[in-house]
């Protein structure tokens, strides 16, 4: 009996010590880890826009973050956008506004939000600021995060992150669209599809099929169960000379998405998910732009 007590005591003590050491290590490294994640995310964004370390983006390129919130008050729902209203130049003071629209796309109100550029990235801080501005008695829910890319004040692309159900769990993607909502590129950020089958969605020969699809094509995009043509596959994987590649990509621009072998459901969920994201985004941005123009709200993008 005495033995047992001693064992229990010692094991508990060991666990406590281990927990202390691990906790301390976590606290020390957490900030750097978060920073790494942020850097990785940013690198993905620039890669989608066609920039890399060897070809850095010019300083005239600015990313403007837009966060969409759903605010519910009793039975009424509003869609609110947290948008930057400053000059947008790096170094200038950050200013943000929460613009609320009703479901018909009419503006309800606009309120300034007191938050700085560092804090707005952190979900918790951002949510708190929005709740404070929205006022009491309202349910605030974060919906999604979009980035508008401008070059010298002119819009050149949109980056939108999103999640949709895949075959097993949610698939997280980031899409790059040009101002006409033509697909520039897609990156799969997270998924848990089956290795060798559904997991092939992150391979170039699948995800690059979305490249260059115009908005009208995207709206009616379907999945076909046909083998991927050899020349198209080569072009998708970057195995051809640039001129040939452009030609082949042009040829297949209006074709549907070729399903992955043995992973039709994964292919279909990605296609439908992307389609839905782009369609909704186009509708929302058009209504937001309309309101911003009508109300003459100065924004940085």
């Amino acid at each position, binding site marked *: 009996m005495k033995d047992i007590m*001693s064992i229990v005591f010692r094991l508990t003590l*060991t*666990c406590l010590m281990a927990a202390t050491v691990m906790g301390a290590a976590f606290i020390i490294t957490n900030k750097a880890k978060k920073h790494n994640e942020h850097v990785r995310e940013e690198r993905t964004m620039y890669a989608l826009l066609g920039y890399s370390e060897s070809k850095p983006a010019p300083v005239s390129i600015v990313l403007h973050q837009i966060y969409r919130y759903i605010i519910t008050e009793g039975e009424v729902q509003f869609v609110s956008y947290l948008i930057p209203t400053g000059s947008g130049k790096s170094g200038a003071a950050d200013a943000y506004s929460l613009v609320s629209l009703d479901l018909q796309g009419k503006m309800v109100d606009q309120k300034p939000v007191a938050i700085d550029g560092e804090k707005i990235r952190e979900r918790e801080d951002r949510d708190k600021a929005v709740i404070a501005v929205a006022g009491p008695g309202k349910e605030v829910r974060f919906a999604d995060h979009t980035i508008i890319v401008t070059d010298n004040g002119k819009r050149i692309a949109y980056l939108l992150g999103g999640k949709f159900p895949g075959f097993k769990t949610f698939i997280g993607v980031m899409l790059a669209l040009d101002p006409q909502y033509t697909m520039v590129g897609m990156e799969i950020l997270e998924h848990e599809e089956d290795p060798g089958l559904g997991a092939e969605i992150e391979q170039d020969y699948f995800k690059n099929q979305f490249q260059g699809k115009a908005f009208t094509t995207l709206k009616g995009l379907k999945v076909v169960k046909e083998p991927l043509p050899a020349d198209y596959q080569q072009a998708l994987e970057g195995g051809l000379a640039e001129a040939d590649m452009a030609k082949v990509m042009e040829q297949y621009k209006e074709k549907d998405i070729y399903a992955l072998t043995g992973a039709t459901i994964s292919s279909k969920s990605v296609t439908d998910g992307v389609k839905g994201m782009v369609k909704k985004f186009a509708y929302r941005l058009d209504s937001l732009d309309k309101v911003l123009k009508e109300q003459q709200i100065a924004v940085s993008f």
Partner: protein
Amino acid sequence: MTNTKSIGQLLSRGILSENPIFKLALSMCPAVGISTTVMNGVMLGVAVFFVQVFSSVTISLFKDQIHPRIRIPSYTLTIATWVTVIDLVLAAYMPGAYAKMGIFVKLIVAFAIITMRLEMFACKEKVKDSFWDGVGMGLGFLVGMVAIGFVRELLGSGTILGYDVLGFKPLLFFILPCAGFFVVGLMMAFFNWIEVVYKQKRGVRS
């Protein structure tokens, strides 16, 4: 085992006469699984080195407090703690390497060589000796991983540390997992052969 040993002896034992991979044949899974390039070998070797040294010192420090009946749980907890710490540090300060090695770093918890050194050495010996024993064993593992990685990378992809040295790929077979067994086996034979030759020569001389 109670007689005191010099630092040199402790070090050379880990690297040569009791090399974890070639002599003790412990922790073969990583030796076979991920030693496809020199860089992989270095990365895992360094991680194991730190875990081994920290765990050896920790166990040696607390050896009188560890109840003999719960030795193994205590060792496992110690190793798991240090592996977690190293995992967090790598994730925070070496994100590029961590993206490749992350999964394998967590596996170090189950490496036989570390538990074995704690059970055989650290729980009986002084802290200083345990430290040098840990350093020796960690270096031995590192050397083994790098040696296997060198052979496999050179013969499999024709490169060393990513630099193209041969200009062609001699045998793709060497990067595949099964080749790990062949390389480890051949190198084990090679090490033993050197030892036999060395001993014979010395025997002749004396």
